[in-house]
């Protein structure tokens, strides 16, 4: 499926309840206060709770909120048109203020690729849902993300550090990680 077809299909899965309310407000204000000097045009609201974009990347990117994340992933795998059964890359990213995870999914039947991004602003105690029961490869990958970024995953069978020792203090791949002994900064 092409990126546009995918975008059309997936957008409709999580309709945004805000979109309907804003359009009502617009209708009411136009009919009642036509003598007002200036009518503020309300900002356009995304019809879906997901943000889909293709810019700055070769694949279709979906940015999803943590609340709808697990439902989206389950749908992406189970839906016969999308059928994303191969999770080939799970990366943790430190976006500066937020911590996030990026999932690269591929379908073995249709051979299309999609990217799902989820972020959380909470740097003290970041928690996201685990996708271990959808794709078994996620078990090790999520341990790696926990090890390097500190992001905890709900429902993970065995969440502990993978590469570093259990007593290690801190999360090395975060941008604010400081280690005078081990890091050589140019």
């Amino acid at each position, binding site marked *: 499926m092409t990126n546009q077809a995918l975008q059309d299909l997936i957008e409709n899965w999580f309709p945004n309840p805000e979109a309907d309310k804003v359009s009502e407000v617009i209708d009411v204000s136009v009919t009642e206060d036509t003598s007002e000097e200036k009518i503020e045009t309300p900002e356009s609201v995304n019809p879906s709770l997901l943000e889909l974009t293709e*810019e*700055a*990347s*070769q*694949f279709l*990117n979906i940015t999803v909120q943590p609340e709808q994340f697990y439902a989206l992933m389950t749908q992406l795998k189970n839906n016969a048109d999308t059928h994303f*059964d*191969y*999770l*080939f*890359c799970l*990366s943790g*990213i*430190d976006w500066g203020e937020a911590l996030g995870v*990026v999932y*690269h999914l591929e379908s*073995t039947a249709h*051979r299309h690729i999609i*990217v799902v991004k989820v972020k959380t602003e909470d740097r003290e105690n970041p928690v996201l849902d685990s996708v271990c029961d959808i*794709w*078994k*490869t996620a*078990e*090790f*990958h999520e341990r*790696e993300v926990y090890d390097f970024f500190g992001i905890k995953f709900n429902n993970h069978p065995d969440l*502990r550090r*993978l*590469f*570093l*020792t*259990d007593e290690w203090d801190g999360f*090395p*791949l975060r941008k604010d990680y400081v280690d005078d002994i*081990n*890091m050589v*900064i*140019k």
Partner: protein
Amino acid sequence: MDTTTVNSNFKSEEYFINMGPQHPATHGVLRLLLTIDGEIIKKVQPDLGYIHRSIEKMCERDSYQQIVHLTDRMDYLSSHINNEAVCLTVENALELDIPERVKVIRTIIGELTRIASHCLWWGVMGMDVGALTTYFYGFRDREMINDIFEETCGARLTMNYNIPGGLMFDIHPNFVKRTKEFVTHFKTKIPEYDRLLTGNVIFQKRMKGVGILTKEDAISFGASGPVGRASGYSCDVRKHHPYSALDKVTFNEAIKTEGDSLARYEVRIMEMWESLSIIEQLIDNIPEGDYKVATNAVIKLPKGEYYQKVEAARGELGVYVISTGTKNPYRLKFRSPGFSNLSLLNHISVGGKIGDLVATMATLDLVIPDIDR
């Protein structure tokens, strides 16, 4: 890791054994914690990190030309293909027009690297199941490839021949002749390998029906490369997302459906034949031209995200770059094939014996620096 966290469901008849990190059969510094009941394995837990060198953190500090040199050390048996992955990422991001000559040479050397890696794998495979002589036969053929590399690239193992924009220097005048000699020589050797090991009754009984991986599990665990192809999952990146000169050659994808250790073994032997065929198709017609394209001394990728997949000897290697327009990547992630292949070790070894575990690990062809990065 203290044993109390591991033994939460430990029954009194079960026996806890530590294999590694120094062990002849674990192919590097891998520590396996085995819970066994007599000879039957109940649980396998890998303990990683013994050769973790924080390559991903270093990449956030280094320039792109320097990053290419770091990738040699990840999966050192397919070092050229690792270099190629990063170079292709950078070149696609900058939208450079790479000369045909470079693409063809990169493909030929990549396939030679694949054969060298499989030769070493075959030698070590025999050694793990007890046929100690195969080690020498595999290395004898690998030496010929290493000599070709030494003449052209300057190094035998960590080749550093690729740079973003092309190759570091042109191929040596002897390269074509020696490669053709090697191809002729090696075609008589693979049947010898088959006579020595593949057809042996003891070997077949050790490998048949051992460590079975179904196709759904292979996809779910992210298995790629020969491990995935032996379970019937068509995952060859060279076929589905071709790169360099691979769209110009015709070759068959080696697929088997049984999913046991013997299938994984046979898939690699078939891959060696296919690599020879690819080299033969390309070696006589290397196009003339430049061996590199000029790039800036300081490479800055435009803002955005880039992903490149290549088929390393072990499976699908992915390079994921997030760039903010500066001279270092904001984040660079390597999707290593061994990491996903290792995660299925517990699933396929439970219920088998320790001897089966060793045979299975040999067919998974793990290189631990690739997993630990």
